[in-house]
């Protein structure tokens, strides 16, 4: 158990250190997410009356697309000097590598979302309803980064990794996207915990199921 935590933390900390130095992933993901918000604003011509309808969708499309960009980088850096091979030579179980990479991607995404969400709320003149929106964001992000980490490792080992990740990732995360968009919409309309509980349950079920499944199959994805 101690070995598990040390390994996961070592990988997580290495990714954080590397990111602090280059700020490569965070900056590109952040700028990209902002651009999506702005572009979609034009696409939907969001006047005051339609904002409530389109805003949650815009927010989650921005997070999903930006997340994909970050997830793609997560294993691309491991390919640079074949360091993924170096990781696999370490005397740790394969799921330690999965959890370490997941912890990194999850943290990066949360940081980006913590910056984008307030900007988004201000741009669309929406009420700040933090605790509920915060929980939705944390749970849904865990869901799509857990699937995304698995598929990022998979697509990093294919010939067309930039194309493979979205093709694999987007259809699978449909349930989280639906639940997150719906719950966000309800919260922005002043919904209570009771109103969003069904959607939160779906997100939590997705999180648990795909964390377990990803842990079980990750080994087959990175093995040579």
């Amino acid at each position: 158990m101690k070995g598990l935590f040390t390994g996961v933390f070592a990988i997580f900390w290495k990714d954080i250190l590397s990111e602090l130095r280059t700020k490569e992933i965070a900056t590109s993901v952040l700028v990209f997410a902002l651009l999506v918000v702005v572009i979609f604003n034009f696409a939907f011509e969001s006047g005051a009356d339609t904002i409530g309808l389109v805003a949650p969708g815009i927010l989650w499309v921005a997070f999903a697309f930006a997340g994909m960009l970050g997830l793609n980088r997560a294993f691309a850096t491991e390919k640079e000097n074949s360091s993924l091979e170096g990781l696999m030579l370490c005397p740790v179980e394969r799921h330690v590598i999965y959890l370490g990479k997941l912890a990194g991607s999850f943290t990066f995404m949360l940081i980006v979302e913590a910056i984008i969400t307030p900007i988004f709320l201000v741009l669309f003149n929406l009420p700040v309803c933090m605790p509920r929106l915060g929980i939705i964001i944390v749970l849904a992000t865990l869901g799509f980064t857990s699937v995304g980490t698995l598929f990022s490792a998979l697509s990093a080992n294919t010939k067309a990794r930039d194309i493979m990740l979205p093709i694999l990732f987007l259809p699978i995360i449909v349930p989280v996207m639906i639940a997150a968009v719906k719950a966000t919409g309800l919260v922005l309309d002043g919904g209570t915990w009771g109103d969003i509980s069904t959607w939160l349950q779906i997100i939590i079920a997705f999180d648990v199921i795909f964390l377990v499944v990803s842990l079980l199959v990750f080994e087959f994805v990175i093995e040579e």
Partner: protein
Amino acid sequence: MGESGLSSTTWAIEAYGLAKSFGNTRALAGIDLKVRKGDHLTVFGPNGAGKTTLIKLLSTLTKPSGGSALLDGLDIREAPGQIRSRLGVVSHSTFLYNNLTVSENLRFYGRMYGVTNLEQRIREVISQVQLESRLHDQVGTLSRGMKQRVAIARAVLHDPLIMLLDEPDTGLDPHAIMMMRDVLEPFTSGERTVVMTTHNLERGIEFADQVVILHEGRVAYQASGQEIDTASFRETYDRCIGMSI
């Protein structure tokens, strides 16, 4: 590595009919090998002969499709984790992170291997590869030769019982090769068993107690100690790999 003393077997590496195919192509067609503890084995062979596949099988990166292999008495199928903690691998890729400094890289790998007294150990190995002055530089700023020396430091951090060197000279200039050879010397002498793959015949022969020439996934030549015909090895090699051209 206190537990390594427990296994009483005299062989560091044993392979019996070890085979690997990728789909319909056979990379290794069943090879037998035995390397005594402390011995040096050099594996020669042209590209595609199966050298890298052999190293990947021994380092548990890939699973055999037939046969078996034991490292320090442990089966590669049954105890890959324990085997990995006894192995140090230097390949033509460095496995290092360019954005991290030399010390951060070593600290990361040290933690992954559960090295005790890590800071002291890092100082030790970095002085052995003569890169103390570059300890806090990012790996990306180092020359190819220096990176390879950091890679050696990375591979010996946990004091492995067996070292696998997969074409460690690739991409280095002659000076860097000389330098690396000197640096590698103390790590490969003594108790440690070493398997090296290379194209460089002179260097490989000089290094080896035992040589193997692989061709098309089979052992084409095998000799150890005095039996190695050092004088006419170039001809032997050409004969082995030229047979079926």
